[in-house]
């Protein structure tokens, strides 16, 4: 089984993000970066599937030279090789999906796993676009059942399994009112939700071995994709600062304020 997994470089969620005064972007200076956590879950799931069914995990990232750091992280976790689409400059979701389509057609994986969204701009679009472009089935928000100590829990199947004939995947996904189970013919596109798994730690030997694993370099030109953005970001702004709360002396005042100021009762 061959699995292609994305590894987007995003701002470390522990960094403090500040919008530039002119709203043209965020302040890059002093920021730390890491692999998109949903993509990291995707790498872990890919490695688990390959451990069970054999095959290889190929990771792909789009960006400047710096995205090799995220590719190396995935390789240190155990991915077999990497594809780097060298591109600097603006990209929108259609451009990203277009590049991934060409990489997918070149690599011919059985399964593409992406994070359901990346934690920088939270668009939640690329997986869906990619499936549409490829004409493949898609199962988004692949998730794991929460532990409930029930009989059902004991018999639960892993959220992402390959059916016995090896021709389809069964995906348990989070939907608004609970869980939905899908079977999807391979090849297919799956996007990961938070509770699918806990990614393994990169080990020291893994990090050292990752150094010698191959990273293939491609470009939008080589892949024949026009990535001119169709979406333009006009302005970024911080959410309005929250006003400080107030203390009220008694219940009567509270009710009065809820009724006449907040107008919620």
């Amino acid at each position, binding site marked *: 089984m061959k699995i292609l997994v994305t590894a987007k470089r995003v701002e470390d969620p522990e960094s403090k993000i500040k919008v530039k005064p002119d709203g043209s972007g965020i302040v890059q200076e002093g920021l730390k970066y890491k692999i998109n956590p949903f993509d990291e879950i995707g790498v872990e799931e890919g490695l688990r599937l390959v451990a069970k069914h054999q095959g290889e995990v190929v990771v792909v990232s789009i960006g400047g030279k710096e995205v090799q*750091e995220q590719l*190396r992280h995935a390789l*240190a976790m155990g991915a077999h090789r990497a594809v780097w689409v060298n591109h600097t400059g603006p990209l929108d979701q259609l451009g990203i999906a277009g590049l991934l389509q060409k990489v997918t057609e070149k690599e011919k994986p059985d399964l593409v796993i992406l994070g359901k969204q990346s934690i920088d701009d939270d668009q939640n679009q690329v997986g869906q676009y990619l499936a549409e472009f490829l004409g493949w089935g898609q199962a988004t928000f692949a998730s794991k059942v929460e532990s409930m100590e029930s009989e059902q829990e004991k018999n639960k199947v892993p959220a992402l399994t390959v059916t016995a004939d090896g021709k389809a995947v069964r995906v348990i996904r989070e939907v608004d009112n609970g869980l939905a189970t899908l079977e999807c013919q391979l090849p297919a596109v799956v996007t990961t939700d938070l509770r699918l798994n806990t990614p393994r730690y*990169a*080990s020291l*030997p893994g*990090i050292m071995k*990752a*150094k010698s694993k191959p990273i293939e370099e491609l470009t939008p030109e080589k892949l024949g994709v026009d990535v001119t953005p169709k979406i333009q970001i006009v302005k970024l702004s911080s959410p309005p600062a929250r006003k400080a709360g107030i203390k009220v002396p008694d219940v009567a005042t509270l009710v009065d304020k809820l009724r006449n100021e907040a107008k919620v009762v």
Partner: protein
Amino acid sequence: MEFQLTEDQRALQQAARKYAREVVRPKAAHYDETATFPRDLLATAFELGLLNMAAPVEYGGVGLSHLDQTIVAEELSWGCAGVATSIIANDLANLPIILHGSEDQKKRLLSHFAERLKFSSFCLTEPEAGSDVANMQTTARREGDEYVINGAKCFITNGGHAEQYTVFATVDKTKRHKGITCFVVEGRPAGLTVSKHENKMGQRASDTVSLTFEDVRVPVKNRIGEEGQGFAIAMATLDNSRPLTAMFSVGIARAALEHSMEYASQRKTFGKPIIEHQAIQFMIADMAMNTHAARMLTYESAWLLDQGQRNTLQSSYAKSFAADMAMKVATDAVQVYGGYGYIKEYPVEKLMRDAKLIQVYEGTSQVQRLVIAKELFR
């Protein structure tokens, strides 16, 4: 000259930081309080390759450079200095084999540490031979293809859990340091007893014991180097490990600094957070500046080793400066916390207790200064 970590070094740092933050930190207070062996934390450390960083890849280790190891060591000690000491103990004990072992010895005595979680102890210190190593009382008497070891060792890290011991003993007391010889004792042979678990002030997660050797037999093939080379082997080992212990100080100091910054931003006196008082700002600035200075000294001492250069002077600079620095920074952290700093519910008094040991072990701050003076007048 470059003042930034490489991509690989950042990856190692991140991996060690994640382990320290997610695995070690949540349990550090528990193991400090109970002074029990943190086997679960060490099992994870083994899986991540942290337990055998120094051994070459062909003998089952990770083969990290000295600089890489110090980068990892800072993170481990930031998590808990006691756990870090227990983690590094394997590399310390195995360094004599890595540095001076024959091909056969490396294969037999190093490679098996990759198979499963196993501990190894470095046995140099004796009740009458700490700083004064040449006063060693433990003897090794040759009998045919074996040596027979008799004597006592103290302050042995992980000694109660080890399955291999690197032991220094003298073949001739009258020769002082020229009689000292290095041996590897495999398993727990008859005559080797673990006698006393020390109840320590700090670094309580690391297991520290006394050992007695009564007619313990070691095959000649387990002698590292020649008879009389043991002193040089021990000193070379400590030259290699000194940057790591120096970096343990940096990890403690960084933890103390971070806790102090967080607390000083929250705690209010006279109507404002105490960080807005200049007295606290000055303390925090001193903590940050000294922590970084120690880190730079330590990087240099490790870098020299990686260049194949002698680092005795610089590693003594690093170890004594960093250890004294960490003691001061941790003490100041308790001061920033005020009364709460003295209470065990808060994290900084542990750092103060942990830091103290680094001024003492692997060459006291005073011995480091003797070495520095001797090197300067060489």
